[in-house]
């Protein structure tokens, strides 16, 4: 497969997942705050959302006020924010458009419909009047694309690169949400429940644990081997795919990913929880990025990071 094609597919997966994760975060934050008293807590909560999607600094630069409406608008529809949901979907679609010839018609149609839907809606109004419906719609839209992927795509390298991007994004987003949540050092059960809900894990949590325990959270969201949105689960999936993709067993990306997965696999949640947790999560997040960088270096190398310069000589003048 063309290196560029592989990269397009990888990023189609990433951007789609990012759109869904952002919608999930906004949704649960919005709902949690409906029950809370406005004020300081609210500002903190929205700042957490921005941090979790890695856009806190960008948001500050944009000069917007830090409140629910403004953050939601920024993350849903701001055309200047390349991380907004609308932009993510647009970019997922542009990337997919770059590999149209490899995609099944149904898949393209599903993705294109989601894009056209977001383009045609008055998102600002939706954010204001029916945010829950909007976030649900985005989640369903993305999931219907992923459903088509799952149900129709031949398991070839094209599919693998798509899924690899999607799973690495999901893992990274998952770690970051945990880290941001963790950094608050508070024991607010509602906040944690929101984090669980964003990962579709609240039900699973209630079934398995009777009370609120920080290590239980880590166990479930970071280390669960059965919860589809846990970090370990995503990394395992990514590792399986990467093993099929990479012919060379000494591949750096595979080694990095294998090591990270093994460390998480055999980690003890009780040891992880504590003052060192935040920095552990930071390391995990950085490792996931290293894996992505190694995949890029191994598979996506083409002429993109290089400037084009012309050479010419002028006759005349003094010889040197």
């Amino acid at each position: 497969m063309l290196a560029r094609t592989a990269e397009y597919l990888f990023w189609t997966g990433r951007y789609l997942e990012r759109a869904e994760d952002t919608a999930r975060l906004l949704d649960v934050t919005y709902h949690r705050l409906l029950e809370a008293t406005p004020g300081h807590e609210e500002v903190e909560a929205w700042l957490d959302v921005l941090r979790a999607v890695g856009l806190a600094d960008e948001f500050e630069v944009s000069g917007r006020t830090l409140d629910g409406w403004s953050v939601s608008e920024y993350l849903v529809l701001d055309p200047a924010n390349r991380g907004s949901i609308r932009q993510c979907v647009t970019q997922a679609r542009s990337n997919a458009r770059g590999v149209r010839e490899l995609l099944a018609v149904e898949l393209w149609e599903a993705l294109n419909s989601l894009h056209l839907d977001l383009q045609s809606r008055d998102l600002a109004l939706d954010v204001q009047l029916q945010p829950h419906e909007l976030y649900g719609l985005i989640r369903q839209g993305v999931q219907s694309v992923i459903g088509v992927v799952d149900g129709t795509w031949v398991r070839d390298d094209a599919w693998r690169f798509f899924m690899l991007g999607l799973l690495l994004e999901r893992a990274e987003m998952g770690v970051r949400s945990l880290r941001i949540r963790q950094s608050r050092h508070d024991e607010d059960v509602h906040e944690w429940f929101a984090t669980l809900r964003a990962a579709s894990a609240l039900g699973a949590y209630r079934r398995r644990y009777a009370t609120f325990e920080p290590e239980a959270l880590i166990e479930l969201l970071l280390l669960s081997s059965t919860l589809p949105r846990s970090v370990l689960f995503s990394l395992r999936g990514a590792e399986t795919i990467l093993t099929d993709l990479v012919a060379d067993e000494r591949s750096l990306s595979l080694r990095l990913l294998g090591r990270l997965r093994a460390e998480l696999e055999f980690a003890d949640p009780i040891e992880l929880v504590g003052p060192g947790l935040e920095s552990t999560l930071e390391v995990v997040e950085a490792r996931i990025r290293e894996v992505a960088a190694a995949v890029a270096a191994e598979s996506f190398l083409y002429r993109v990071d290089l400037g084009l310069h012309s050479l010419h000589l002028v006759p005349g003048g003094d010889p040197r």
Partner: protein
Amino acid sequence: MRFDVRYRTVFSYDEQVSESQNELRACPTTSETQRLLDYRVTIQPAARVFSSVDAWGTRVDAFGIRRPHDSMTVIAEASVETSGSVMPAAAPRLEALRQKGFVDEYVEYLQRDRHTDFGAEIARAAAEQVDLVAPDVIGAILAIHRFVGQTLRYTPGSTEVGIAVDDVFAGGVGVCQDYAHLAVAMCRSVGIPARYVSGYLFTERDDVGSPAETDAVVVQTHAWFEAAVPGAGWLGLDPTNGQIASEHHVKIGHGRSYDDVQPLRGVYLGPGNSDVEPVVEIRRVPPIDLWRSGANVSVSAVDAVPADLPLGVRRYSDPHPSGSSIRQQQLQQQQTGAVRTGSLRSGHDLPERPAPGKRNQHTRT
């Protein structure tokens, strides 16, 4: 006269360059007044060279390097034997320039391009020179040649490649390339076909042009021009030093302007800037034999050029101003549509796929 020419150019880059693709035009041509005896190209880092002859008759050596490198050395070594231009015995009149067959044969050397796109000032100056000696064509060519030599002051480093010929004329300074372009433009403005010549000159000073006292000199490539004389062929003149092209002029090739016979043109891919160091060593060596060629260029005669075809009137316009983004270039393809000027805003600290047209973000993750 026999010379050994050693052309050596070193490109050094600030940072590693991953790829470089180039075309070299450094090989002396074989013509009525010159014969190539030996030629060899060496590239470092080593590269396979593919040689061909271009539309203008110049040998082109194409080569690419696809390994990381921080410098590139190009060496072209030639042995060549020259005999200088001879002043034609014919004395054609200006009317001969309008003959159908003549215009048809030389039409490419009557057009404008980006280096020879002259304005009214140049045309007026040329017309004045021609009027002084009318109706003699050779007289007109020599008058323009002299005028260019007197009008421009030789000033290394005063101009850059790509300068408009009108600006050269207005500025009054330049290097050999500017002299040649101005002479070519003036000739064309009065209907005399003229072409740009690239080559080597055996002299210690380009602007004086006197043959070197020693047997070896270190120079750069040189440029002069040739004008077509009805009934007699091309006449080579070097306005930079006020000479007829002599046996000390080693010609590489000719073209409509510099672009057609650039000594080296190429591109490289990499982050940094480059520094160029071109050096030509010319060594005079004893001749091995006396050589003259009687070959004539065949002439095609199509009797179809209308007498009053106003050739070369259209100002040259650059159809593709440079500096456009990849997105703009994609847009420009096969449509005369919109050209975007805004730049893409860079993203946030999340890993982000470089959008087409967006560079240097590839390794941010």
